[in-house]
């Protein structure tokens, strides 16, 4: 991340934002296909994960939001303070946290999707 130009990172930031808005809208609409509390029942949620296109969409949403969210946090932290050591720590810290969140979320999608519950 630290080797990438900031202009390119901002394009990624805006691209992930637009992608996430579209896909999160679909994610919310899925909850509204039935009564809200009924859509949260175990069988209903498991059925969502077993539907491959929806599970793939969840994975894409997870990646888009994690990249956008942790890059946003990186921008806020870099606006606050500057310095070679600090900037490196923020860049790699955000990259690490983003990767950890994607791995943890993907584990849930994969395990629920293949029925390892």
């Amino acid at each position: 991340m630290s080797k990438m130009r900031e202009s390119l990172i901002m394009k990624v930031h805006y691209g992930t934002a637009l992608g996430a808005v579209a896909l999160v809208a679909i994610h919310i609409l899925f909850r509204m296909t039935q009564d809200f509390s009924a859509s949260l029942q175990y069988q209903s949620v498991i059925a969502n994960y077993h539907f491959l296109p929806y599970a793939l969409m969840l994975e894409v949403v997870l990646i888009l939001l994690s990249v956008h969210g942790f890059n946003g946090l990186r921008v806020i932290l870099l606006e606050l303070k500057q310095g070679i050591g600090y900037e490196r720590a923020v860049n790699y810290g955000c990259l690490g946290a983003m990767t950890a969140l994607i791995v943890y979320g993907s584990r849930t999608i994969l395990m629920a999707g293949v029925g390892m519950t």
Partner: protein
Amino acid sequence: MERQSNREGIKGMMNPTRYGIERFAYWLQRLTGLGLLFYLIGHIIETSAIVEGKAAWDKMLELTQTTEGHIILILVIGMSVFHTVNGIRVMLGHGGIGVGKPGRPDYPYRPASLNYKQRLCIWVSIALAALAMMYGAGILFGE
């Protein structure tokens, strides 16, 4: 030393009262962004209960499907809508759309980029967030 003393750090960043509504929108964009990031992390942790089986999922629902949980969700709806609409304004502004033409700086030195279109967009972002929160409250608490 002089430069050091001018630094306001986090206090300066958290002060939304100076420089008008544009500064308030900048502050709110960052605040809602942080709120949504915390929610994303919490949402991924809460939904991971599904892999522990039905009992764990139902226990998680008992914790989150409460009045407090619904209030947090309503706040998340408002934060999402404001962050999205204001974010689109910022994106368009970075692309040079809606920021006006550069002109000679004359007294009272109002920058062309902070024009009525930008201010209107900020108020529309706030209004849409409020409407979405009311709609969300209607669904979560029953109409």
